[in-house]
């Protein structure tokens, strides 16, 4: 699976794709692989606030619950209904169809400190 050049990556294995004042957030292929079969995704309500570095969702595998941290601050504009019905899509297409939320950003996000694709792949290679 490719790690898109236009995405930025966090140490906690989330990705963010910023387009103007909108950002899409998801978890990486590495994350879904580590989690195993995903059986439940708990997303925030549309309209709720997300804060950079704070948890905004949880993803459950058969055995465990994992918190997901937001790489940006803003307001949740859309949540991915696909994952409520078919959480397993998160294992299949974590960088594409199975994004978690879209966020209307508060301000220009400080994403330059986040890893680019090549750095993230090095990071997970080294882990």
């Amino acid at each position, binding site marked *: 699976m490719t790690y898109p050049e236009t995405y930025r990556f966090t140490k906690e294995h989330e990705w963010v794709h910023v387009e103007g004042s909108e950002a899409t957030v998801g978890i990486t292929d590495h994350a879904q692989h580590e989690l195993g079969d995903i*059986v*439940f995704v*708990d997303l925030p309500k549309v309209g709720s606030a997300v804060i950079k570095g704070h948890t905004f969702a*949880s993803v*459950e595998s058969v*055995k465990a*619950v994992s918190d997901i941290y937001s790489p940006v601050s803003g307001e949740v504009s859309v949540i991915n209904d696909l994952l*409520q019905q078919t959480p397993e899509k998160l294992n299949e297409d974590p960088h594409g169809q199975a994004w978690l939320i879209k966020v209307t950003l508060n301000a220009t996000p400080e994403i330059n400190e986040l890893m680019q694709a090549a750095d993230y792949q090095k990071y997970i290679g080294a882990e």
Partner: protein
Amino acid sequence: MSLAVSELRRTPLCDIHCQMNGKMVEFGGWHMPVQYAGVLREHHAVRTGVGLFDVSHMGEIEVIGPDAERLVNFVSTNNALRLKIGQAQYSALLYEHGGFVDDILVHKVSDTHFFICVNASNQWKDFEHIELMKLKDGFKADVVFASERYAQIAVQGPKAMATAQKLTSTDLSSIRYYWFRDGEFAGAPARIARTGYTGEDGFEVYVEPEAAGTVWNALVQAGAEFGIEPCGLGARNTLRLEAKMALYGHEITATINPFEADLAWIVKMDKGDFVGRDALEKIVRTGVSRKLVGFEMRGRGIGRDGYEVLVDGLPAGWVTSGGPSPTTNSNIGLCYLPVHQAQPGVSIQVVVRNSPVDAVTVATPFYKREK
């Protein structure tokens, strides 16, 4: 407690697990695979075909001597006197106060030789308990900690028989459920038991540690035509939960008695004295205040181990084991509730990350195989 990987115990099959891409984790001080291809896939393989489990971490204790049967019958809640040679029974070891030391599988090898399979995490505790009880009443028998002598591999599923039969001249169809026979398996001397922790038909094969690799590889080959999958602890747990089988530390602990745990059926009060009997008699007279019951989630959320359970908005009990049920496509679990609510059809709520989520008590097992 967190142990460095190098301090964890390893089964003889550890290298094979790594070769087969087992995702290794720490379990009760052991380095064990939690999954290979994936928990759901492994679970479905056992329910529809055949799955393979390394259960060598389990403990084995042998009781040998003229008083072996009397000693086993004294420490075990089930009636060991009713066992025939080659027969096994599910049972428990209790403390004098009636709480669980462990749940066990007792096998009668001969009138003077009993073979007990015990939980990995309790094996030393169980050994010391039986030794202590033996010394208390002066039984003439040796209690032998035999775990290092045995590796154990479980092959489970509707195709387990067809798979395993290829590897032994013993007629496996003549071994009835919960019976065992000593013979040969994949060329190694073996104890072949028609037992398991999955709710499916299958066998648990005990061999010398040196033979474990050969037996495992032979089963992988023999089961290939049926799509055999190596299965880890993740699937082991989802399978046993659907079959409503207890896990020590969850449904049964030192502070829970068999009547609360819905295990009255393994306690034979009329067989004579056994450790814990006096305490259980009192409990029979006064009744239990809480009982184990199954539940199924109705709202969005998974009720997991340790989560609080509410009835009418008030704390009433806790989840002992809970999670997704791949075969029934629901989220299930077991919980302790006040005895009058511990029956099917009661509306409850499970507190999932600070929010109560609707659930309902249900009859168990959640899954039962076709005979």
